[in-house]
């Protein structure tokens, strides 16, 4: 006899054991609005145009201080990413100088296989240039940040597969600056007040502002607003791609696998019933 109650109970037991893990993060972060991302959900894929815009913001603004040491130029041409052509990547890489002890003079032009060059030679250089604070590496930063939901809302995340806490946090952070700290808040010299940064005093000044980056508009396409809101969404999406470059392929495979498993389980159940037919158990 197939006992649905049994299976449900098993699922409930596992869920009840696994779920509290969600509650393990910090508890005093302010509420962060979830954005609607093209890469969320089981059919999620990156928006190629958005990744290209995000890349532009990263390249023109963020990469002046932040490294991305795990990102190779060639990755930018991979399927599911910003979709640059191999020629574009070659040309892009050649714009950068790569430190290479085996080359003449210790530097050479970049090639597609090179990794994104860091803006500072050492951690100490980076700190010296940034008032003592170290700008974190961007490679997996979008996955090293998250959003905490209050009970019982985090329970739903396991069923929706919510994995966009990083971009949501980054988007909120970039929009969370205040010119003045609220009254009574002691802001140290060289720090900036941010609603979402833990402890509120962040070493990075507001990096983006309306009109700072000019997007090129392709013919026949709607113009993209040049606003902080737009930049921060684009760069957060790009950072998610940096952290998870194979996301689209992973989800596509996943859908096929799940579909197969559900159908296969159905067939297995039918076979099992057939075999057990006529046996009291």
């Amino acid at each position: 006899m197939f006992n649905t109650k049994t299976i449900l109970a098993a699922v409930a037991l596992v869920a009840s054991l696994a779920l509290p893990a969600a509650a393990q993060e910090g508890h005093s972060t302010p509420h962060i609005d979830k954005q609607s991302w093209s890469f969320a959900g089981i059919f999620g894929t990156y928006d190629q145009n958005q990744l290209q815009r995000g890349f532009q913001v990263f390249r023109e603004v963020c990469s002046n201080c932040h490294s991305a040491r795990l990102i190779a130029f060639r990755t930018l041409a991979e399927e599911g990413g910003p979709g640059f052509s191999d020629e574009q990547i070659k040309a892009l890489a050649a714009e950068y100088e790569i430190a290479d002890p085996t080359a003449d003079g210790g530097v050479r032009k970049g090639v597609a296989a090179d990794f994104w060059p860091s803006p500072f030679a050492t951690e100490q250089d980076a700190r010296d240039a940034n008032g003592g604070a170290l700008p974190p590496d961007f490679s997996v930063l979008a996955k090293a940040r998250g959003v905490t939901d209050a009970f019982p809302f985090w329970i739903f995340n396991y069923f929706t597969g919510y994995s966009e806490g990083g971009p949501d946090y980054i988007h909120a952070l970039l929009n969370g600056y205040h010119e003045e700290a609220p009254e009574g808040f002691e802001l140290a010299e060289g720090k900036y007040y941010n609603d979402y940064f833990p402890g509120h005093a962040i070493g990075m000044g507001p990096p983006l502002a309306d009109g700072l980056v000019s997007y090129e508009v392709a013919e026949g396409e709607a113009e993209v607003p040049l606003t902080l809101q737009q930049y921060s969404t684009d760069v957060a999406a790009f950072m998610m791609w940096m952290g998870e470059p194979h996301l689209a392929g992973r989800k596509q495979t996943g859908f096929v696998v799940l579909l197969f498993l559900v159908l296969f389980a159905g067939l297995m159940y039918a076979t099992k019933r057939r075999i057990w037919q006529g046996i009291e158990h």
Partner: protein
Amino acid sequence: MSEHSTYTPGSGIEKWLDERLPIIRFSKEHLMDFPTPKNLNYWWTFGAILVMCLGIQIVTGVILAMHYTPNIGMAFDSVEHIRRDVNGGRMIQSFHAVGASMFFAAVYIHIFRGMYFGSYKAPREILWILGVLIFLLMMATAFMGYVLPWGQMSGWAATVITNIFAAIPIVGTPLLELLRGGFSVGNPTLNRFFSLHYLLPFVIAAVVALHIWALHVPGNNNPIGVDVKDTKRDTLPFHPYYTMKDAFGMVLFLIPFAWFAFFAPDILGHPDNYIQFNSQVTPAHIVPEWYFLPFYAILRAIDFNLLFIDSKLLGVIFFGGSILILFFLPWLDTSKVRSGNFRPMFKWFYWLFVVNFVALTYLGAQPAEGIYVILSKICTAYYFIHFIVILPVLGRIETPRPLPTSISESVLGKAH
């Protein structure tokens, strides 16, 4: 054990082999003809599911080890290299990481099934003890595996957990230094954890073989807990009945497995583990993976001294005791009736124990402050009271419901 054999070598080669290494006879006896109670429910499919989990972990793990670099300067990046540049690496890594969680989910169900149906009672004490041993080995393996990506939670977990051993009198400090390979968590720690993480799964596989051996001596327990009286009427051959049922269970189990691995591979982990380990920066909250939370809650609940024992050592005693006490479960439960279905009082206390265990899991994830501290203490106390007081007493005062005389009778009674 050979009385169930119906094997007659079919060909000359089989006969020749059978006289020298009766491996076909053995497989037929134990994987096909083995008489299995006909009333096993789906909770019993978790044994097979766990074998599958171990298999997945070993296969994915061996592949990961081909690309991973156990060096503190390169470990973090090499895991990212696997995710980015190794063919299929993102999924292999994801199956291994999610697989650990699924393995523990299945093992908890398996353990709690054994507790409810009294599968640890005579003559299955050794079977149960081997199971607890596997659980312990799994915990050690999972913990060391979690250190390998060398993220913030990895390094700090290694620091906190090895520190536990320092509380043991006299041998504590030498033991701590032996585990770490130095005075602090560093490259030698990572190297020995990698080595042991590769070794232990094979030790687990060996103990699993013993576990199954010990299972095949008395045979399976079953939902009514009444021994098999008549092999013909009470049992079915393992194949095709249970091979099929288990295979169905495994496929079903793979559905949530695949859900997490493909759509939310990081949801069971902690974002901080995407930051490379830095011994100078302590994370705001150091929390273990979800499957360690109940025991972590017990460890933290002890924040007081008792006589000459300081709180740190006492915490370790309770922490270790919470697992070691499982070894004694067959003798702590004094009831002769195996299945919880026929024990009206036990049933209530069993579910209370489950709720208490889930509460400990929840509390392990909470900061050690305010109401959580008191709740942790209450739940920890109840965890031990269940084993030391409730189970021994229940067996004496409880009047069990009448047991069916045989499996076949109970099965037919259920029939409509």
